[in-house]
């Protein structure tokens, strides 16, 4: 099965700096990866996803990088803003699997 781990449970960055949040996974059959943002008291909000046939995908101020060789996934947030403060979760699935496996989350704190 899949398991997902995060490198750091908390991350503090200065406003305006770039943030990088990492995930490691164990199952090489995992081929669909998602990042979610969860603000206090709310449900997780979809940020960006990537499939295993890609190694990079960009959205608005966010980039997801996938390294299948070392089974590593990262989320980069450019020019971090106070509104980016939240817990960020990675999740993954295998092709055709109806279920996602979630990591434990990284709390991102923005320092003024």
């Amino acid at each position, binding site marked *: 099965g899949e398991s997902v781990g995060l490198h750091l449970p908390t991350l503090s960055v200065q406003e305006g700096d770039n943030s990088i949040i990492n995930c490691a996974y164990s199952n090489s059959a995992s*081929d*669909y990866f*998602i990042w*979610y943002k969860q603000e206090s*008291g*709310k*449900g*997780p*909000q*979809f940020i960006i*996803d990537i*499939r295993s046939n890609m190694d990079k995908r960009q959205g608005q101020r966010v980039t997801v990088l996938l390294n299948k060789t070392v089974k590593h996934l990262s989320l980069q947030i450019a020019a971090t803003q106070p509104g980016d403060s939240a817990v960020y*979760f990675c*999740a993954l*699935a295998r*092709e*055709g*699997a*109806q*279920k*996602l496996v*979630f*990591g*434990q*989350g990284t709390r991102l704190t923005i320092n003024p």
Partner: protein
Amino acid sequence: SQTIHQWPATLVQPVGSPLSLECTVEGTSNPNLYWYRQAAGRGLQLLFYSVGIGQISSEVPQNLSASRPQDRQFILSSKKLLLSDSGFYLCAWSSGTGNQPQHFGDGTRLSIL
């Protein structure tokens, strides 16, 4: 556009009482539906998922059950709540075709006294 609704937002129940949490999705048909529980400061634990009306898969043995009486309605129930049932319950939906992101409601905070 698609929307997902969960209610109530918060609920306080005594031990041994029944539970019914409801989730409905609008703007899509034949979605996959999911119930998760999230302990404080933790990740999401999948409780149940459904790929169609009346089709329920249970992920962990527990004091809860789920039902899908209509295509876009998913209900989480218990006959007798335990203290350990406290938590943040989240409903989610995804398209039924291939790998697609799951989209979450805003959850129900359940406290058992």
